């Protein structure tokens, strides 16, 4: 058997097939890439969102422009504080503008539509100018915030609460607070709550006002805390129990009951006359539904001339306006005084 040579037609056939394959690849490949990844701005935003989904801060920040960043608390821009519980539904250019990329994210029945702005840096890299959502609170009851799985006190600069910078994502809010286990949430995405052009600040107090006021467990906890606090304070035997929301103390006498000044008081005994009923106002401060009062009995000397010892039998109001309610890192509500309590007797 001799050497087998290729027949001429077969050789041409193989060559033609090879050329055909290369030509097809050359035509299809760029089209396939274009269809799969879209234009450059879409690729950048998709890459940013995918980095967030992977909780890869370093990779995400490669797509971020710092030129428009707000002065904010960046301690939440960490893998521990990020949310990956969401899906990318679409990333697209809707208009002829290549600087605005529209995004739709979803998460278990929730949906957010928003948009990112992009601009080129000095090296022609496209960067996102509104990569974060900012949360702002006045600090009152929300002096501590729980976003996703992280709970921390709001950072302050010269006493003023700083805004929290947050990566886009779906975040349960205050999940440790009774009644909020499946309740409040925030789908953070630039443009989904308001204008997206230069970064978006969300008023957290406003966002949480209705959920907190509609949370019966929070209202019950506030009233229970208040009652327990008054019971504890009632054990005091002084005119102005320290750290309590009522007082018979007076600068010009040992005790003032709203009518008379007393000196050399003794046997003071506080009792709870009526526990206050409180709820949260729309501004998330405590408001009185039913005022509370404390009974005060004892003895004291009244008058400047006769200096007669008389029995004290007085009422002192519970100064709810001086009480601050806060939610702690453990999700429990706590009551503290804004300031020293002034005389509240009448």
């Amino acid at each position, binding site marked *: 058997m001799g050497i087998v040579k290729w027949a001429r037609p*077969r050789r041409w*056939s*193989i060559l*033609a*097939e090879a050329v*055909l*394959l290369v*030509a*097809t690849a050359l*035509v*299809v490949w760029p*089209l396939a890439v274009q269809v799969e990844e879209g234009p450059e701005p879409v690729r950048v935003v998709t890459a940013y969102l995918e980095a967030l989904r992977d909780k890869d801060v370093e990779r995400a920040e490669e797509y971020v422009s710092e030129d428009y960043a707000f002065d904010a608390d960046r301690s939440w821009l960490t893998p521990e504080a990020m949310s990956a519980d969401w899906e990318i539904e679409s990333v697209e250019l*809707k*208009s*002829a*503008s290549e*600087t*605005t990329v*529209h995004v739709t994210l979803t998460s278990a029945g929730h949906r*957010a*539509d*928003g*948009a990112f*702005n992009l601009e080129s840096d000095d090296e022609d890299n496209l960067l996102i100018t509104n990569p974060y959502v900012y949360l702002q609170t006045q600090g009152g009851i929300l002096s501590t915030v729980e976003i996703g799985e992280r709970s921390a006190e709001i950072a302050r600069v010269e006493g003023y609460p700083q805004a929290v910078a947050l990566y886009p994502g779906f975040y349960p809010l205050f999940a440790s607070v009774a009644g909020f286990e499946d309740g409040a949430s925030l789908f953070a*995405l630039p*443009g*989904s*709550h*308001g*204008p*997206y*052009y230069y970064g978006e600040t969300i008023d957290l*107090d*406003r966002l949480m*006002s*209705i959920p907190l006021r509609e949370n019966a467990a929070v209202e019950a906890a506030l009233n229970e805390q208040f009652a327990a606090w008054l019971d504890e304070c009632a054990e005091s035997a002084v005119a102005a129990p320290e750290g309590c929301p009522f007082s018979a103390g007076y600068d010009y006498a040992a005790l003032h009951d*709203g*009518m008379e000044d007393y000196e050399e008081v003794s046997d003071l005994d506080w009792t709870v006359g009526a526990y206050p009923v409180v709820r949260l*106002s*729309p*501004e998330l401060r405590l*408001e*009185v*539904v*039913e*005022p509370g*009062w404390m009974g005060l009995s004892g003895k004291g000397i009244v008058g400047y001339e006769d200096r007669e010892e008389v029995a004290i039998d007085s*009422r002192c*109001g519970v100064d709810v306006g001086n009480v601050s309610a806060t939610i702690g890192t453990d999700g429990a509500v706590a009551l503290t005084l804004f300031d020293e309590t002034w005389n509240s007797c*009448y």
Partner: protein
Amino acid sequence: MPTTEDLPTRTRREGLRVGWLALFAVLSLIPLNVWHHVREPDSPEEVVAAFMEAVRDKDLDEAFGYVDSGIPAGPDADFLHPDAISEWDLLEVYEIAGMKWENLVRVTIGTEDGTASGVFKVYEFEGEYTIADPFQSVSLTATSYLSVQVNDRVVAAEPDSNWINWYSGQVRRTVELLPGVYSFFGGEPVALLGYQEEPIGVVVPPPAPGGDTAVQLQAAVNEYLDACVEYRVEAPTGCPFATDGQVDTSDRVRMDRVEDAAWTIEEYPVATAVPGTGLYEEPVLLVEFTEPGRLTLEGTGTADFDTRETFTAACRFGGGLLHLVTDVDGSLRVAPLGTAVDDTCRGTE
């Protein structure tokens, strides 16, 4: 007749045939692509005409593709929706002036009620034409509604923490629209088109009282007052009754330094809605009481500044503090407006 050809050769030929077919299929995309480019508008007039036709046909994705600027997102895009676009005809599109990079195109649209014209700016960049921000911003003053209605689309106003925040939101509720003909809350249609420098202001009057408005109003007022008397304080927030700390008892004794207040409604006021002006001079329906009703204030006070005693005093309801708003389902609600009353007890028999 059995073939003498080897099987591998046959397979290769068939593969080659499939390959040719694939190549033709791919190459056929090229003329399609060319055709697509040929069809794309390549003059300012054509791009504006294509944009307006897409809007008229409610094909928003197509329309947005001709826009130079970004598209509003989230709540700002609530009314960039087919339901918010009404029927109109595109009558005329022609270029009125042109510069190298900016062209002006006049558009006329019409309905059976009339015609309207506007001028769009068209930019040119590397042979492509795009329309400069064609969106129509409308600043609605709609303080008598808990929703916004544009043509057939109704969107509930987002719940706000309190009535004041809600009110300030509804005083200047900016909505972004595509060019077209719009009716707000069923009012007179207005044509909005052309490049816009400033938002257009539209003040929406309160709805005209209907057949059962009086019944609904009274029920809403009663419900509102029931919630008010739950608060045992001297001046419940947003409520049309209060004591300033001095009351005259039924025995005509002046009591001072009122504490331990508790309110009881004896007789609801008779409410009626009257046209008035809101905090921003906009038309609203104020709640007025044609009969002031009656409520009792119980509490403690002092007549001699020496002893404290319980008292009962007669009080009435004051009007002018409340106004009517229509919820998204058409039901009526009562909302506070303006400053609270100081005292509605002294002088009440």
